[in-house]
């Protein structure tokens, strides 16, 4: 491990923990039924987001995917406005129009989208504007490895390379695209693809914030210079809530009795239908699905949790960590208390 200032380490921890505790709070609110619809968390991605965002300056743009909460928290969006928005409140960041998947902050140049791969073109456009205006700003695109099979993202890589635009492409790779293992539907090697466009690319351990921090520490200043070339990092991570809260595969591990009860009947009935494919093919199909359920359990592991990892690697800072945690917890809890007060007072959202 190379030497990093204690101040930097503590700042990274604070960024990560603020996002983590906010999303744990959101999970609780969602479980309690205060938030409708889907909820995609960035828990497990904090090291990637914090490592990158620490190197950004005012005027840099960030295009996020459907996991926008961590970048919005870490970039300094007003947390009350953010949480109100996620609750769908008319006083939220986007007046309750967007929700967690469609967060926007014009003043901080932050966008998000529920359309897979769309952060690519979005970041390219912000980089184009920065270059056009001759600023030294860059644009960052956050996306999952599932997006790397989406045409618009591949076109964006080429566009950024061909037009020499300062785009930092950040691929958060957990190898799961909802319930599909990305390796099963992806040809070749992602980094080879990116390098094929003439873009410098490297793979890093996205659960280690110092690795991420160092990887972009050298890359970003170069991007700001007159050459304005794009850069790509593939950072591995794990989502221990799967694709979204209530992930259908993870339910098999968390509530096996209920889930197997619901699935087994129709599944066995289908296997044993008179008409259909050859019996060996049917059995292979079912085996494959069962094995997928088994594999999905790996997402529940804490071994790649970026916060636990960071705490373990920096035991000497334990006291400071405890202090940071408790102050973030009390700030956030106060915020939630205030917000729930507002909501209760108004009766409905």
């Amino acid at each position, binding site marked *: 491990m190379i030497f990093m200032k204690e101040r930097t380490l503590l700042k990274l921890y604070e960024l990560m923990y603020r996002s983590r505790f906010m999303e744990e709070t959101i999970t609780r609110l969602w479980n309690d039924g205060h938030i409708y619809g889907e909820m995609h968390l960035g828990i497990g991605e904090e090291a990637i987001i914090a490592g990158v965002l620490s190197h950004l300056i005012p005027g840099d743009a960030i295009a996020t995917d459907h996991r926008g909460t961590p970048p919005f928290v870490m970039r300094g969006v007003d947390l009350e406005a953010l949480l109100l928005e996620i609750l769908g409140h008319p006083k939220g960041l986007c007046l309750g129009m967007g929700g967690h*998947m469609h967060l926007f902050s014009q003043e901080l140049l932050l966008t998000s989208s529920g359309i897979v791969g769309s952060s690519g073109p979005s970041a390219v456009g912000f980089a184009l504007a920065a270059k056009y205006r001759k600023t030294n700003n860059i644009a960052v695109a956050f996306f999952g490895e599932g997006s790397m099979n989406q045409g618009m993202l591949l076109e964006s890589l080429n566009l950024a390379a061909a037009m020499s635009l300062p785009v930092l492409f950040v691929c958060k790779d957990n190898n799961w695209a909802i319930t599909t293992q990305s390796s099963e539907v*992806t040809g070749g090697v992602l980094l080879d693809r990116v390098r094929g466009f003439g873009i410098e690319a490297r793979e890093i351990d996205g659960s280690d914030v110092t690795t991420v921090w160092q990887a972009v520490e050298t890359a970003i200043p170069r991007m700001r210079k007159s050459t304005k070339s794009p850069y790509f990092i593939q950072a591995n991570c794990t989502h221990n809530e799967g694709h979204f809260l*209530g992930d259908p595969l993870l339910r098999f591990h968390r509530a096996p009795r209920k889930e197997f009860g619901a699935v087994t009947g129709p599944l066995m009935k*289908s296997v044993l239908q008179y008409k259909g494919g050859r019996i060996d093919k049917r059995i292979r199909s079912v085996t494959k699905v069962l094995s997928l359920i088994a594999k999905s359990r790996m997402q529940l592991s804490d071994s790649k949790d970026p916060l636990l990892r960071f705490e373990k690697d920096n035991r000497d800072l334990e006291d400071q960590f405890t202090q940071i945690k408790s102050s973030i917890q009390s700030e956030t809890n106060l915020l939630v208390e205030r917000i729930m007060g507002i909501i209760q007072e108004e009766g409905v959202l």
Partner: protein
Amino acid sequence: MRTMEFAEAIESALKQAMSENPDIFLLGEDLHTLRVNLLAQFGKERVQSTPISESAFLGAGVSAAMAGLRPIVEIMLVDFIGVAADALLNHAAKVHAFSGGKWSVPLVVRASCGGGYGDGGQHEQSLWGWLAHIPGINVVVPSNPADAGNLLLSAIEADHPVIYLEHKLLADYWLDYMGTGGRENVTFDIPEAGAKGEVPNKWQPLPIGEAKILREGSDLTMISLGVSVHRCIEAAAILTNEDISTEIIDLRWVSPLDTSCIINSVSKTHRVIVVDEDYLRFGLSGEIAAIVAEEINSKFQFGRVCTDFTIPFNRNLEDNILPNVNRILDVARAFTYE
């Protein structure tokens, strides 16, 4: 007769069709979990999971259909069809015309649609008017389990591209995936008669472009489809108490549109309300107004209840943007009756 839920009916009809015709296969994201029962019965050649590459696999579905197969391509949410629009707009819809009618594209595109569960404006759109605008493509939107199964067979048997849209408030698994996420403490306004109902023992294709009169009436015609049909039924029951007799047409098909059914009804009632969850401007409701204006020589009153804004995430705002019973009643009561 037997009773089935909406999604169960679609799966049952698919099983029947796939058992009878080996050329039918499914292509789409996450199908090994979304269509696990079909995978278990027919094997992975007929239930193929794809990467998140809509423009590629929808485009591939077009030419697989041209090669004589009967692909059913799934676009998880109709909102995501924007990514793959070219395959529909410039290929699926054009090949038959470009080839002088010699080469057809028997493709089904299946997608979930609709709102009312708090998922925001990128996941809850209807878009059927936008899609039906393109010549060469049919669009069908069932409102109940019996229609869901029978109309799926119509779509599969058609020799041209058909977009089949299933509303997420009716299909329980979609609502579970995207609305409740397994929770029991969030609820939605699910129309019972749409989510579960009697279905035939054997699925039979219905004629393409045929609407259904759900209720006969003499004062007012409500024209609708999908979940909104059920909002109309609720509104009509209230209007009965106000001595307004309502006829309800479930269009089922956006394209081709059952113009004679519309004209016959409006010729009788002289009052029409289009209740359409899709966007207000330049869509189905305007099309129906044009048809009525072109074909009916007597005076008629026209109103529409549609979605006129990006669908908000906030549930209250959302419920007011989407067609609801109160909005339908407001329009019906503003008409003059003598």
